[in-house]
């Protein structure tokens, strides 16, 4: 009987099985940010166990609220900063070099096929795009991860999503994943791994694959995952070229981390994207999804383009194509946050930042910012946002605010019109 990618990673990383079904895995990466890590640090200090299992496997960033907005967030950043210095953690990213965790860590080449990755952040599933097992965890799991380099999971089952057909113009990975979540429901993948397969995924860039995997948790999934292939190798090449003689050699090596043809899945969902329309959420759950056309004309107060879902160069490019030479509606506040300094710089060089600014967008530094309503871009009570982020929970971007999730292209079109708009109708 064949194995899924997740099963192979579990087998190869199994450190202990203290009880049947409880798999304790050794970890290749423990990622840390300033919101969930300081409490773990404080607890380790209190237990007189202020140690790290392997400083080269920890990757640390201040990203959620940066620059700090008040004394409390400054204190969180300070705790993380001092801890990173105290343990001489080489890969620590502070202001000026920092970006959204799930964008900056892959960009630096830290995630590889077959890796086990945890972080105190639910969208850690993003990193499955590289053929890794990457799961969001709480602070206690993070604390044990930092100290011991292990984390416990139940035996994973996998849901296979076959994405067939060809992507129509104006339809993106974000539309696909919103559609998939509407099919699975918000708990349709609980305790499961969501494996994205098929010709549509094969043609996707790593950016688009990260967008898919990023939202696996919105269907309850433990991790999203894509099979490593030449696209993965090309993306990683500058980091791995000393490890392999050729790209083909790297590809051959990574083929170990592909699900077997006769692997057993918990279930399979076939989706033909050929007739898919741009998607948008309504209400307060990410599985409440309609076509953009159905919500066309809904007024919005703010448009946010950014986050670990859609704050990458490809996303900014798509939005800029719509905005070029046009002005956003007077009634709308446009905010764009390139997810990392590199994305910001590349966007500058390509003239994308110029387009955003000329259209009337405010360009912020790389940060989670408005995504979780903790810092710049909080909504007032009763306000509505069009956003490229991943959660439309009640109050997510500010108490009493409402969020419609959509692709960067749809968000840009919505900014121009001031109402939810299918970019293809402009």
């Amino acid at each position, binding site marked *: 009987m064949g194995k899924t990618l997740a099963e192979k990673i579990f087998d190869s990383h199994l450190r202990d099985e203290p009880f*049947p079904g409880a798999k304790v895995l050794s970890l290749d990466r423990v990622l840390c940010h300033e919101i969930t890590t300081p409490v773990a640090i404080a607890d380790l200090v209190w237990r007189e166990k202020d140690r790290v299992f392997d400083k080269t496997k920890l990757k640390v960033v201040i990203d959620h609220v940066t620059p700090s907005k008040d004394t409390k967030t400054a204190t969180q950043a300070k705790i993380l900063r001092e801890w990173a210095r105290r343990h001489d953690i080489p890969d620590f990213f502070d202001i000026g070099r920092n970006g959204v965790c799930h964008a900056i860590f892959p960009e630096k080449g830290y995630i590889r096929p077959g890796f086990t990755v945890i972080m105190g952040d639910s969208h850690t599933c993003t990193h499955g795009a590289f053929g890794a097992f990457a799961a969001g965890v709480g602070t206690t799991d993070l604390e044990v991860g930092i100290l011991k380099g292990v984390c416990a999971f139940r035996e994973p089952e996998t849901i296979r999503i076959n994405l067939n057909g060809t992507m129509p113009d104006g339809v993106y990975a974000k539309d696909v994943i919103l559609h998939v979540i509407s099919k699975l429901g918000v*708990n349709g993948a609980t305790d499961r791994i969501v494996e994205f397969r098929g010709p549509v995924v094969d043609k996707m860039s790593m950016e688009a694959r990260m967008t898919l995997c990023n939202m696996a948790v919105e269907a309850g999934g433990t991790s999203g995952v894509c099979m490593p292939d030449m696209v993965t190798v090309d993306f990683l090449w500058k980091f791995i070229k000393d490890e392999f003689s050729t790209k083909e050699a790297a590809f051959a090596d990574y083929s170990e981390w592909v699900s077997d043809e006769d692997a057993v899945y918990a279930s399979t969902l076939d989706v033909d994207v050929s007739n898919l329309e741009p998607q948008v959420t309504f209400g307060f759950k990410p599985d409440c999804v309609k076509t953009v056309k159905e919500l066309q004309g809904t007024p919005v107060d703010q448009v946010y383009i950014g986050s670990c879902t859609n704050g990458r160069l490809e996303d900014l490019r798509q939005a800029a194509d719509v905005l070029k030479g046009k002005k956003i509606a007077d009634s709308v506040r446009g905010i764009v946050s390139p997810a990392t300094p590199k994305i910001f710089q590349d966007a500058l060089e390509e003239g994308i930042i110029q387009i955003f600014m000329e259209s009337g967008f405010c360009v912020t530094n790389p940060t989670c910012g408005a995504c979780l309503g903790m810092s710049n871009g909080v909504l007032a009570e009763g306000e509505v946002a069009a956003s490229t982020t991943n959660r439309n*929970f009640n109050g997510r971007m500010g108490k009493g605010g409402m969020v419609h999730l959509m692709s960067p292209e749809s968000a840009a079109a919505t900014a121009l019109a001031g109402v939810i708009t299918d970019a293809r109708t402009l």
Partner: protein
Amino acid sequence: MQKKFGGSAIFLDRSDINTDEIIPAKYLTEVTKEALQPYILEDLKLDGFDPKGEKLKKATVVVSRENFGCGSSREHAPWVFEVNDVHTVIAESYARIFRQNMFNGGMLAIELPKADIDQLIALQEQGDVGIEVDLEGQSVIAKAGSEVKKFTFEISQFDRALVDSGGWVEFADARY
């Protein structure tokens, strides 16, 4: 050290209650669990629910529906329960990270089928519901007025070990 389970119940009769509702993001700037205490369930959208009400103040058990604790991985959600003495949650199902966070903190996330939760919720009509948890017998006994109902649940050996040892840090520290 084992937590105290059972006690007075509050019913949150809705599915998909997320961790933003249990503890809003704006309080994630706190670096101690205790500081979260006043903000429990502050943003919960549920008819008739008052986050500042007596019912919640008294409660040590939360009963809810499907996919409880979905959304953000923030352990602040179980912590805000912990510092409000709610060490037991009973629901039809959980989001994985929330469930793990409860057991990792040595607390209980008990799963009961929908029919049992229906009965538990109906019990409220008899008055305040008190709940006893028998971990050995893997059962929940609910009492209201003169009515008594018993439900059985399953807990994995691993989750049980986490509860017994007081949480994952203690367990892992002793073992790895």
